[in-house]
């Protein structure tokens, strides 16, 4: 039987000793804190490799849990997202609230360790106050104490704890100092009864809060989850999430409280020119100031821990040097990623080639072999070969993030990005996706997670696939080599610029139409520069890389099989294949005749060699000439044979579902100058952009095309009367912009939260690509006739 706690009036289970069941399942302790306070470092210290990373249901906020070591108890540590407050404005804040006061009582954390950046005690306590108002025991882990001591800052922890009504510990998360003690205190506090913190919100709000809490108590609205006063404060703050929850339970009470809030709002506006949420915030800070007054903090005002950081900023955000350094950093990052990444990428490719060859031997020739080797190994291997590049890129991105430079990039570029309805923090995802030729949209989409503003995040996510990603580059290289050989470098550069232009303009279009809305506030912290720890960079990189492998690995397997089937079935019927087979047979007969003749000639020549008579030498001369003739005849026949084989492959492709699709859409793409072969290659490109070249190769019957040596295809196209500079230009523009590849689409669906975004992205990008390519065709006709 559950009873109510004599202290806080809530379910007994929250305030009692641990039950046997809790001990068995682990005691939940939550880790809270502002962004950049060292919370992640602390979490890694507590849980080491015993952590599990996932997503909170329905949102892309990372959910991290792990087992922490404690001599007596099994402790399940829950890492909350970094937040400054507990309002309902960002996903992170809503998630934090859900974890701290879940619908399922058993999932409620028993205590919270609040990691506090000691240098910003005042602001950091704002979160602690709100957690205490929710009625959870809090341990104040005053972190970065080493830095604070260095600049002569002293915090009287005992007095702070006594005033605040929570115990305070000094910690240094990087070295682990004080963290075990903080956990021990949290476990201790979790076993004591606790009372929600009640602070006064002044003469205007307090009476209203009292009335509202009484009403909430009386009707039992959400009292199983939140203290009544907390709900009342949230209603006055105008918190939409809590309002909806209250409405759900008791519509009448919700109406009464809404009326009270409206009345109060009108009163405050008339008398003090302010709003309830501003008053609430003022009183919270007032409470914190009263906690911190007389001697809790003593600091030496002549020394600042930000002195070094400020000196670095003088250079890195300087009006002229700032942008120059930023370009340098970005250029280095890409150079290093591709220089260093090409080796492991080669190894992965070699491994899959080797695996393919092995299996080709093991499995008899036929459909199964083709499915396994061409379909599965080819498809999955192609995607996994990008893993090393992505991992290296993530190392750099994690380093930039953890060091504090990423925030400076957002700061410097916000003004530019805002012109296009984006946000300063959109820059990094764009760059990762191919802002400097050669990125990948998949990690780019994942990188938008760090963005806190919903609309800008969506706009960034939907437009970054327009960047010049690494998989599109071979197509551009082949076409520029074939049609614009004289200014290849300039054209490649223009393509990268076109990617940026297309993405930014598309973002502007989206932000003025379906994602219309005010720009979200920029207000952000520029954290002090710090040298990231190796451990955090490695863990960060691994988490993201693994997520890519998992998503890409599962999806691409299915896609590979489907694509393989679409380009294999239906196979040619015997009659359809007959003319090719007959020609092949004929060539084979001729070849074996030539071979037999050559063999007998060789024997005759061997005999003649031993004979030194003039007749013999004359005959030998004749024989040698004949041999030369036979040799060139054999080469001719071999060439003819491979030409017929390629024709057969082309006919096979044309007959498949994919080929028929190409033929079906041919009239639609005719204005751009594409024929069915290009269309089917573009279709394959939706699975993976790497497939565009190889499919064109098959369709143009020149056999296998190695993307790195695509000259043969280029020569073939340059000689084709159906192809011109204009067609090449249209195709390049189309490939740059059209539908993202399938893995990107799936990641996009997960991150954006819905299938509709997947379809939107396919249709919008392809539509945009069609328009731009058509304009390219018109321009091409004017330029080159």
């Amino acid at each position, binding site marked *: 039987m559950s009873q109510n706690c004599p202290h806080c009036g809530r379910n007994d289970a929250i305030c009692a000793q641990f039950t046997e069941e809790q001990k068995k399942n682990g005691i939940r302790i939550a880790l809270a804190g502002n962004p950049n306070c060292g919370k992640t470092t602390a979490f890694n210290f507590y849980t080491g490799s015993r952590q599990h990373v996932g997503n909170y249901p329905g949102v892309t906020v990372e959910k991290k849990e792990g087992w922490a070591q404690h001599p007596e108890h099994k402790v399940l540590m829950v890492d909350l997202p970094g937040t400054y407050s507990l309002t309902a404005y960002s996903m992170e804040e809503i998630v934090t609230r859900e974890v701290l006061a879940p619908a399922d009582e058993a999932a409620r954390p028993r205590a919270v360790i609040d990691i506090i950046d000691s240098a910003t005690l005042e602001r950091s306590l704002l979160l602690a106050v709100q957690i205490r108002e929710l009625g959870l025991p809090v341990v104040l882990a005053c972190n970065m104490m080493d830095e604070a001591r260095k600049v002569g800052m002293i915090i009287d922890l005992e007095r702070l704890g006594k005033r605040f009504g929570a115990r305070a510990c000094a910690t240094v998360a990087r070295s682990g100092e004080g963290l075990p003690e903080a956990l021990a205190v949290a476990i201790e506090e979790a076993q004591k009864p606790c009372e929600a913190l009640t602070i006064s919100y002044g003469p205007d709000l307090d009476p209203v809060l009292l009335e509202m809490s009484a009403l909430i108590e009386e009707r039992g609205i959400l009292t199983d989850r939140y203290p009544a006063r907390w709900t009342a404060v949230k209603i006055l703050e105008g918190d939409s999430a809590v309002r909806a929850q209250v409405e759900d339970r008791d519509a009448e009470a919700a109406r009464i409280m809404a009326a009270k809030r409206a009345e109060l709002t009108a009163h405050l506006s008339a008398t003090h020119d302010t709003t309830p*949420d501003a008053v609430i915030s003022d009183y919270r800070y007032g409470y914190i100031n009263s906690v911190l007054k007389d001697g809790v903090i003593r600091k030496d005002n002549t020394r600042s821990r930000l002195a070094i950081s400020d000196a670095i900023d003088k250079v890195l955000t300087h*009006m002229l040097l700032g942008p120059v350094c930023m370009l340098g950093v970005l250029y280095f990052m890409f150079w290093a990623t591709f220089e260093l990444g090409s080796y492991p990428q080669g190894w992965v490719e070699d491994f899959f080639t080797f695996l393919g060859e092995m299996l080709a031997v093991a499995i008899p020739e036929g459909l199964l072999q083709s499915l396994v080797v061409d379909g599965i190994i080819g498809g999955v291997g192609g995607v996994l070969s990008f893993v090393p590049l992505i991992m290296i890129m993530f190392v750099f991105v994690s380093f930039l993030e953890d060091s504090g430079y990423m*925030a400076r990039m957002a*700061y410097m570029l916000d003004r530019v990005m805002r012109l296009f309805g984006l946000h300063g923090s959109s820059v990094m995802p764009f760059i990762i996706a191919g802002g400097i030729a050669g990125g990948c949209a998949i990690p780019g989409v994942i990188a938008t997670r760090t963005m806190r503003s919903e609309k800008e995040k969506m706009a960034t996510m939907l437009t970054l696939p327009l960047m010049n990603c690494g998989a599109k580059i071979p197509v551009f290289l082949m076409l520029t080599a074939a049609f614009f050989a004289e200014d290849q470098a300039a054209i490649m550069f223009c393509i990268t610029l076109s990617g940026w232009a297309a993405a930014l303009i598309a973002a502007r279009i989206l932000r003025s139409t379906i994602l219309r809305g005010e720009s979200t506030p920029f207000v*952000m912290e520029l954290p002090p520069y710090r040298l990231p720890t190796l451990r955090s960079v490695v863990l960060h990189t691994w988490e993201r890389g693994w997520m890519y492998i998992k998503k890409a690995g599962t999806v691409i397997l299915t896609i590979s099989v489907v694509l393989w089937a679409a380009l294999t079935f239906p196979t040619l019927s015997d009659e359809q294949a007959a003319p090719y087979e007959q020609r092949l047979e004929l060539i084979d007969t001729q070849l074996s005749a030539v071979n037999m003749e050559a063999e007998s000639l060789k024997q005759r020549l061997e005999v003649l060699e031993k004979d030194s008579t003039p007749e013999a030498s004359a005959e030998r001369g004749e024989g040698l000439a004949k041999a030369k003739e036979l040799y060139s005849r054999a080469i001719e026949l071999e060439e003819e044979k491979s030409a017929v084989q390629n024709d057969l492959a082309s006919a096979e492709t044309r007959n498949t579902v994919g080929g028929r699709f190409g033929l079906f859409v041919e009239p639609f793409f005719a204005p751009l100058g594409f024929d069915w072969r290009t269309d089917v290659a573009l279709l394959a490109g939706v699975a993976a952009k790497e497939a565009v070249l190889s499919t064109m190769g098959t369709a143009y019957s020149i056999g296998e095309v190695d993307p790195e040596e695509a000259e043969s295809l280029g020569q073939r196209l340059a000689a084709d009367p159906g192809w011109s500079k204009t067609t090449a230009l249209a195709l390049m523009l189309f490939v740059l912009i059209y539908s993202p590849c399938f893995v990107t689409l799936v990641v996009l669906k997960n991150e954006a939260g819905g299938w509709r975004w997947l379809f939107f992205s396919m249709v919008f990008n392809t539509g945009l690509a069609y328009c731009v390519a058509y304009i390219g065709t018109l321009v091409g006709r004017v330029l080159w006739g």
Partner: protein
Amino acid sequence: MSPINLRMLVPGQKANILKINAMGELGRRIRDMGLVPGTQLEVIGKAPLRDPVALRIEGTTIALRNSEADHIMVEVME
């Protein structure tokens, strides 16, 4: 000194926050970052394109756009 807009300050100037005029989300974010009446701030720099602006408050650096600074009234300290 009469109250002026935070946008008017130049790097190096110190001021006291008098009032936050922003409503809703922007107001909340500004307050959550510690920008509340009575707080001392110093403008420590501007981005290369003169927007956003970087402020020093209580041991942290906060960046905000000029359009957001418009909502904050300050009193210059000398």
